[in-house]
């Protein structure tokens, strides 16, 4: 198992390099450059502008620039935010816990809905429950996150006035009240993101369970006299989860996309809303860094999926 994880780690490094290359290419191909204002500014003599360009290596060959950028990123030197006037890595470190909390709890919610509903629907295919669940799942992943967010705000904040729709980082309460207020303002963002994922995952779980539930080894398990609960949880679910893990890992980029939208709707101060506000304010170092962080998170999730495979199906880790 340890060697398997190590091998997976070795595969993750080239993908990370590949992604950094894609990001850098996009940046290098992009028109405009950070010193264009200096050139057109009459107060700055051309030699100064030229010296600045040389100092920051803007005229170096592309490969040299890529190498410098990559080493700086790896050393944690992510540049300086033009707008917030602090280092980008400090800014991201301040914002990232909220994003991780939001994504983590919404995925947990999605799993808690998708696995039981999917399994139950698959054990009774084409029953009323299955049909209702399938329809709801279809609706769930056809509703774009921004529209679900608006609907929830309309209903819970404006109509019922139960939940706040603007996320506040500075809650003046202490103790239990503090946690309660935080919990209350997380409900809607987590629901929006979680319901979207739950819809897609319910379908995956259902069809994956359907694929294994009639296999011979399940019949064998039943005929050994095992209870239905043991058969489903120990024999069926574990094998059905393997394709589900693949699909969930493939969905990760979409989840981060959903997180950006959700944070933007509810003004959650995470890195998703940071990327939008930085774009609107032309804060390139922050935009690049956040994109890089999102890519790293996706790779990390793929790695996690690979490790989960090894646990779900020990045969995989021996190959």
């Amino acid at each position, binding site marked *: 198992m340890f060697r398997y994880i190590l091998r997976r780690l070795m595969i993750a490094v080239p993908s990370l390099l590949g992604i950094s290359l894609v990001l850098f290419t*996009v940046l290098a191909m*992009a028109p405009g450059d950070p010193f264009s204002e200096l050139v057109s500014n009459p107060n700055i003599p051309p030699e100064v502008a030229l010296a600045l360009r040389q100092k920051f290596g803007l005229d170096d060959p592309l490969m040299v620039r890529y190498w410098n950028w990559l080493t700086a990123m790896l050393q944690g030197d992510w540049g300086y935010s033009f707008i917030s006037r602090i280092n980008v890595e400090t800014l991201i470190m301040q914002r990232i816990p909220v994003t991780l909390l939001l994504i983590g709890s919404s995925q947990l919610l999605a799993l808690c809905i998708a696995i039981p509903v999917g399994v139950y629907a698959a054990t009774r*295919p084409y029953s009323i429950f299955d049909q209702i669940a399938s329809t709801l799942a279809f609706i769930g992943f056809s509703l774009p996150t*921004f529209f679900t967010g*608006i609907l929830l705000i309309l209903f819970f904040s404006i109509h019922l006035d139960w939940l706040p729709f603007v996320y506040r980082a500075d809650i003046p309460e202490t103790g239990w009240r503090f946690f309660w207020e935080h919990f209350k303002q997380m409900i809607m963002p987590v629901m929006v993101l979680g319901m979207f994922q739950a819809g897609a995952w319910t379908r995956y779980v259902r069809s994956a369970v359907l694929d*294994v539930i009639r296999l011979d080894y399940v019949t064998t398990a039943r005929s050994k006299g095992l209870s239905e609960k043991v058969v489903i949880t120990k024999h069926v679910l574990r094998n059905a989860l393997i394709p589900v893990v693949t699909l969930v890992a493939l969905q990760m980029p979409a989840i981060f*996309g959903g997180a950006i939208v959700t944070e933007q709707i509810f003004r959650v101060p995470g890195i998703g809303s940071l990327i*939008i506000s930085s774009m*609107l304010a032309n804060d390139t170092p922050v935009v690049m860094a956040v*994109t890089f962080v999102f890519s790293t998170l996706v790779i990390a999730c793929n790695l996690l999926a690979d490790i989960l495979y090894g646990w779900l199906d020990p045969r995989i880790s021996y190959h």
Partner: protein
Amino acid sequence: MAGSTLASPTTEGKKPEVTPSNHSPGREAWRRFKRHKLAVVCSVVLGFIVLAVLLGPWVWRVPINEIDFNARMQGPSWAHPLGTDDLGQDLLARMLYGGRISLAVGLAAMLIAISVGVVVGAIAGMSKGPVDAFLMWVTDLFLSLPQLPLLLLIFYLFNDTLKKMIGPEAGVFVLVVAVIGGLRWMPVARLVRAQFLTLREKEFVEAARALGASPWRQVTVHILPNAMGPVIVAATIDVAAAIIAESTLSFLGLGFPPDIPTWGRILFDAKDHMDVAVHWALFPGALIFITVLTINYIGDGLRDAYDPRRVL
């Protein structure tokens, strides 16, 4: 297959009722598609939306940018069936116009995604060894790119230049379509490659090869037509995904300029006035939802129609 249950009821085996086999594959698929009742209903609904968007502006002749401060943020009425926005502009006219753009973006982005995906998948599937391995590495790399952040990044970096080059509307359209299409080809490429790997070894392709068919002819005449089923399904889903992606961009305020009212853009403008003008946000949102839902159901029906495990 040890009695596995099929994923949807329509493929459930009806008893083989001795149908003549001279039906073309297309008609066979259509016959199976018709059995998925919801998909048929959704096709009708989607057809209605497309027709309304295409022909609507000729029937409903209210200009999309007629400002009327006496009718600001009004709910639905006979003069304005879907109400008005904060400048008193007619929402029905704006949504009909915006629908053209949303649907056009969806279709064009889908075409790009499918073409790139089919080409990459076909090359990978036909060539063995390093080319295949490299193409699949690139595909997996693109699959693990975070799409929305990258979409936003490319948009952010290239928007101004393209706007200057070919005008604000065409520039944004080209960029949106290219970026959305360029980030969605990977599943298609994998699908096509998988199909190619199995079809390539089938007897009928071997026969063609034995008769001296060139690789190009093998691909275009023998393999590709047989691999199209899953591609058509993926194409349908891609239209829906592209519509969502475009609406998301517009909703974040980064898509089309404000004077082009795509559905996402109307929603973006409406979200700050939700306490006074609910209809303004509800109608475009519901329209995006219904369009995406119907397209997804049609994709589901098509999947049944092209299911390789189908029983007649």
